[in-house]
């Protein structure tokens, strides 16, 4: 069982054999300000982005695209803002499949372009839990 640490959030993102680790803003070094277009208000700048976006944006900066992504989160369950933003990051990374293992050990899976769309555009929500 994952321990829900109240002071640190860690997100580990795996893609194409690479591993990227993100942490919550006050744990991040260096902690630089840089806008991120198109994400929600809590994640629209690198200075304040959550750990999950931190991990995924590192993969984007490396130019990685396509394939399968696995995001494991510890310390806090994925917040409502990140639920939308993680899907957007997965679209930017052109992932065929994204699996999220949340801090409460619930597992979420998004397959293909359509499931990653916003809920109002026919995309999949996070309510359905897999395995």
């Amino acid at each position, binding site marked *: 069982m994952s321990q829900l640490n109240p002071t640190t959030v860690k997100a580990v993102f795996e893609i194409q054999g690479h591993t990227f680790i993100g942490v919550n803003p006050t744990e991040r070094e260096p902690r630089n300000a840089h806008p991120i277009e198109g994400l929600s208000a809590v994640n629209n700048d690198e200075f304040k982005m959550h750990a999950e976006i931190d991990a995924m944006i590192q993969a984007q900066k490396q130019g990685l695209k396509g394939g399968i992504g696995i995001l494991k989160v510890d310390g806090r369950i994925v917040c*409502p803002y990140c639920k939308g933003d993680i899907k957007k990051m997965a679209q930017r990374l052109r992932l065929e499949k994204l699996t999220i293992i949340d801090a409460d050990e619930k597992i979420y899976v998004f397959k293909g372009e359509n499931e990653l769309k916003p809920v109002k555009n026919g995309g999949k929500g996070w309510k359905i839990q897999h395995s």
Partner: protein
Amino acid sequence: MKKYKAISIDASPSNEEGLAFVYFDFGNFNYLTLCFSSEEQEEIYIENSEQTQSVYSDNIEYEFKENELIFKFEDVIAQKINTDSVVAIHLNISQQQMNTLKESLNAIFEHKTVTTV
């Protein structure tokens, strides 16, 4: 009581993911945000300027007083998000923004029996 001046406000009663939210920007990456999705949440999500300063709780009330929006948190909630139990946010916004703000707060709090004090 902690007092803030909002330099900008982002709010929606239902964004593209069906999330009702309000986000008050106090400058220098300080903010207070509340959100709720009736599809995916049981309680309101509250975050104060940092991912770890966040909590899910319905033990929060709000009221408009002149040009301020006042949030009242239960003490344990205030402690978890590292703020005072009463937070007053000075608003200088248009009527249209005020309408959107009120709609968004209604959407966030509508699952609660008592929504305002």
